[in-house]
């Protein structure tokens, strides 16, 4: 990662993505903050990116489709497990 203070949109969007997973370091976050202050497009990307993280994360974690495995599949699992035990 470059030591330059001023970064381009390419680097800014990468840092923005990393920070969605808490993987941007302090220096990167600082450079990003300055870039966002100056760049409207990236600033919008950053806001929308946060929202994207939130909705997709909540969705994927909270809404598994709660499918029940059919009983015959479970019975099949059980007999295979038994076979391996014996």
């Amino acid at each position, binding site marked *: 990662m470059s030591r330059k203070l001023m970064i381009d*949109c390419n680097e800014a969007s990468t840092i923005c993505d990393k920070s969605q997973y808490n993987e941007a370091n302090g220096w990167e976050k600082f450079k990003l903050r300055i870039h966002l202050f100056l760049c409207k497009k990236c600033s*919008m990307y950053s806001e929308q990116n946060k929202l994207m993280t939130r*909705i997709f994360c909540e969705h994927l974690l909270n809404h598994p489709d709660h499918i029940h495995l059919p009983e015959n599949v*479970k019975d099949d699992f059980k007999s295979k497990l038994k076979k391996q035990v014996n």
Partner: protein
Amino acid sequence: MSNLSDSENNKLDPDRWIDLYADYLFNYTTSRIDDIEQAKDIVQETFLAALKAMKNYRGEASERTWLVSILKRKIIDQYRKMNSKKGKAEIRVSFYEEGGKKGKWLEECVPQSWGNEAEIEFETQELGVALNKCLEALPDKYKAVFKMKTIDNIETEEICNELNITASNLWVIIHRARLQLRKCMEESWFKK
């Protein structure tokens, strides 16, 4: 059946595994692997692998957590298989290879204002449908990496090792997945 763990804390009881955990593990898998048949196989393999690994169980984690940790390995294996099938060349490129000005947003990727971000209602069924549709439209590899990072919080280094990609490849994939998801949600949801 006796349990093989020495620990006083948690015990393993394979006779009850299927009844107690099969549905949970199956749902855990289907939120990460789209193919139902593959998901069934993975759950089955998980139980069989767990049986073999029982002597390594230290009783520190709950039975379910322990089974999930085995399941995660199986899911990563599946991702890796998907990865090797598709070939690795396609992702060895940078953000702006399509003749865009270096470091600037490409025309078609420039973020648009949605205007109604604040009004978004979470947890509605329609939103769920839209999110699923957009996820399904992602290329397999993008979807796998996006899910591994976003819901499983798997370390970047681990994903890179498993999928044999570099960290910068990984961030390119994440960025593209997010761009595509954003565009899809923009069209199907935010601009409505």
